[in-house]
C-alpha cells in the first residue's frame, strides 16, 4: 500500500551492514521518489558508497529490505536489477572502444544491430561525445571518460541511476560544469538519480533532497535550503556550509528568541518552538557570513581577537579567537576587511541567523 502507490520508486528498510565486525550501516531507512535527485552526503567512512553498492547489488546487506518499484530485489544479482551505476573510477573497459563500451549492455541483452546503432548514437549525442566512437578509454581525458561512463550507464534506461562521486577526479572548473550538465540531463530524462558525494557544495547545487550520513546512520535529510538553514545537529551545521558552533547556557526565551550566556559574552538564537528552561545547556550554530563585527561592544555580543586572514575561492576567511581558545570563522565576499590581526573585536548576529542544534527531542 505504501510502495509504488506512494510514488516511491526505491525504498530501503532498516539496511544494516558490518565489515569484519565493524558496523558500517546501522539501520538505513530511505525512500526515493520517482524522478528525484537524492544526494547521500557524508565524510569518508560514513557508509554512503556502501548504500549505493547495496542498491546496485554489488554488496550484500546483512539485514534489511530493498524495494524497487515495490518489489523486493534484495536477493537479485546486480544484472537482474533495473538500476545502473556510474563508478567513481568510471570502470570503462580498457580493451573496448567508446562505442563498444556504450553498446555493452545492449550486446549482453542481444539487441539487434540497427537498434544498437541508434541507441548508442543517441546516448553519445546526449553526453556530447559523438565523433569519439572509435577511441579507446586511454585516449580520452578525465571529463570525456566521465561522459562515456554516464552514456554507458544510461543506455538501458535504468529506473534509478546510482552515481558514486562521479566528479571526484575532475578539476574544479570542469566539476562545476559537469554539475550543471548532470542536473540538466537528469531533468531532461526524468530518471531518478542517487548521487554520492562528500562535497556539500555539489550536494546543494544539484539535489532535490540531501541525506546527510554520519557513522552509518542518517543524521538529517531534507531540501538543500532546509539542511543549510535549519541544521538539526552541530555535525550537519559544520559539514554543510561550515557553520560556527558555540555553546552556552539558556538565560531566557522571549518572543521566540533565546538568550544565552557564555564565557565570552551573551548570544542569541531563534528558538525552534521548544520551550527552553533557564540554565539549560544549549548549542547554537551560526554561519560565518551572518556574523557581524564591531569595534565597540553591543548589548548581545561576544568578544574575541582577530587572527591572520586567509583568502580562498573569492571569500575572505577571518578567524576570530575567543578567550577560551575556540575560533569563530567569519566569511566575507571580496578581499577587503577593516579589522587588523591582533585587534579585539565584538561579534554579533541577528537572532534569526542562529539556530539551536543538538536538541535531542528535535532529532
Amino acid at each position, binding site marked *: 500500500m505504501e510502495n509504488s502507490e506512494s510514488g516511491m520508486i526505491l525504498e530501503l528498510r532498516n539496511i544494516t551492514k558490518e565489515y569484519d565486525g565493524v558496523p558500517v550501516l546501522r539501520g538505513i531507512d530511505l525512500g526515493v521518489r520517482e524522478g528525484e535527485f537524492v544526494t547521500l552526503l557524508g565524510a569518508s567512512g560514513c557508509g554512503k558508497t556502501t548504500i549505493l553498492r547495496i542498491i*546496485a*547489488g*554489488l554488496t550484500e546487506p546483512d539485514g534489511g529490505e530493498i524495494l524497487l518499484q515495490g518489489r523486493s530485489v534484495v536477493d537479485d*544479482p*546486480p*544484472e537482474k536489477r533495473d538500476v*545502473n*551505476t556510474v*563508478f567513481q*573510477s568510471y*570502470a*570503462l*573497459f*580498457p*580493451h573496448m572502444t567508446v562505442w563498444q563500451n556504450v553498446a*555493452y*549492455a545492449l550486446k*549482453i*541483452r542481444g539487441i539487434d544491430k540497427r537498434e544498437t546503432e541508434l541507441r548508442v548514437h543517441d546516448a553519445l549525442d546526449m553526453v556530447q561525445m559523438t565523433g569519439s566512437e572509435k577511441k579507446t578509454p586511454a585516449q580520452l581525458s578525465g571529463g570525456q571518460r566521465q561522459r562515456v561512463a554516464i552514456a*554507458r*550507464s544510461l543506455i*538501458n534506461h535504468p529506473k534509478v541511476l546510482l552515481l558514486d562521486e562521479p566528479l571526484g577526479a575532475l578539476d574544479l572548473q570542469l566539476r562545476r560544469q559537469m554539475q550543471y550538465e548532470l542536473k540538466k540531463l537528469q531533468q531532461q530524462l526524468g530518471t531518478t538519480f542517487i548521487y554520492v558525494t562528500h562535497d556539500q557544495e555539489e550536494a546543494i547545487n544539484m539535489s532535490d533532497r540531501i541525506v546527510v550520513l554520519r557513522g552509518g546512520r542518517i543524521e538529517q535529510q531534507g531540501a538543500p535550503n532546509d539542511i543549510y538553514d535549519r541544521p538539526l545537529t552541530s555535525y550537519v551545521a559544520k559539514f554543510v556550509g561550515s557553520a560556527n558552533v558555540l555553546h552556552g547556557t539558556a538565560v531566557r526565551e522571549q518572543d521566540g528568541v533565546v538568550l544565552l550566556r557564555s564565557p565570552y559574552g551573551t548570544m542569541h538564537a531563534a528558538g525552534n518552538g521548544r520551550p527552553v528552561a533557564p540554565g539549560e545547556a544549549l548549542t547554537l550554530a551560526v554561519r560565518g557570513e551572518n556574523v557581524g563585527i564591531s569595534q565597540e561592544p553591543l548589548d548581545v555580543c561576544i568578544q574575541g581577537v582577530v587572527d591572520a586572514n586567509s583568502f580562498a575561492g573569492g571569500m575572505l576567511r577571518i578567524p576570530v579567537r575567543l578567550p577560551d581558545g575556540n575560533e569563530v570563522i567569519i566569511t566575507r565576499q571580496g578581499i577587503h576587511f577593516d579589522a587588523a590581526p591582533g585587534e579585539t573585536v565584538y561579534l554579533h548576529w541577528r537572532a534569526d541567523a542562529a539556530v539551536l542544534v543538538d536538541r535531542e527531542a528535535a532529532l
Partner: protein
Amino acid sequence: MKKDRWWLCIAPLYAFTLVFVLGPVLYMVTVSFAQNEAGTGFRWAFSLDNFAKMRDPVYIRCFRESLRLALATTALNALIGYPFGYFMGRLSERGKRIVTFLIMVPFWTSSLIRLYGWIILLQAKGTLNTLLLRLGFIDEPLKILYSYPAVLIGMVYALLPFMILAVYTSVEKMDWTLVEAARDLGASPARAFLTITLRMTLPGLMSGVILTFVPSMGLFFIADILGGNKIVLVGSLIQDQMTRGGNQPFAAALALVLAAMTTLLLWLYRRLTGTSELEGMF
C-alpha cells in the same frame, strides 16, 4: 647532449649480449652448413647435406613427436594453470604468499631428482599403482612409466609453475571494478568472465603459453628419463649428435631448424590471437 649519455650505462649489457648470445648463434648457423668428418670433427666447406639428411622419415617423425608433445604440454598447462592462477590471484594477501611459497619449494631440489621421484610414483610397483590397486580401481598395474603419458605428466609438471605465475601476475593486476561494471550492465557471472576477465588476463595466459611452449620444444631429459628410449625428441637427437654421434654440423642444423620452427609457430600464434601486448617478446 649530456642527456643522451644514459646509453653508456647499458652499453656493456649490449656488448655482453652481442658476444655471448649472438656470437654462438652465428657460430651454430655457420657450422650447420659445414661438412662432417668422422673422427676429426668437421671441415669448413659449404654443404646442404645436413639439411637434406633431415628429410629421412626417422627424423621427420622426431620433429612431429616433439611438436605434438610441446603442443599437448602447453594445452594441458593452460587448462590447469589458468584456473589455478586465477583463483590464486583472488586469494587474500596471506593466501597468495603461502601458495607462491608452495610453488617455489620444488625448485629448491634439482629437477633431475624430482624426475626420479616421478619414476617412484609411476613405476609398475610404484606408489600410484599400489594405491589404485588397493582402492580397487584397477586389477593390474598400469604401465604408465616409459610411455607417452609419463613423459607428458613430467613435462606438464616441470613447466606448470611458469604458466601459473604468468596467469597469476595478470589476475593480480586485474581491476575487479570492471567485472562489477559488467554485472551492473546486465552480464551474468559467466558472461562477465568471458567478456572482461578472460580478455583482461589474456596477456598473462599468452606469456604463459610462450613460457611453456618454447622450453617444451627443447626439453629432452624428461623424455629420456620417463620415456625410456621409446620417445626420441629433437632435443635428445641434438644432444646425441653433439656427443655420442659426433656429428656436430648435423646437430647444429637440427638446432637451427628447431629454432626456426619454434619462431614460426610463435609468429603464427601471435597473428592468430591478434594481440600486440607481447610485441617486445620476440
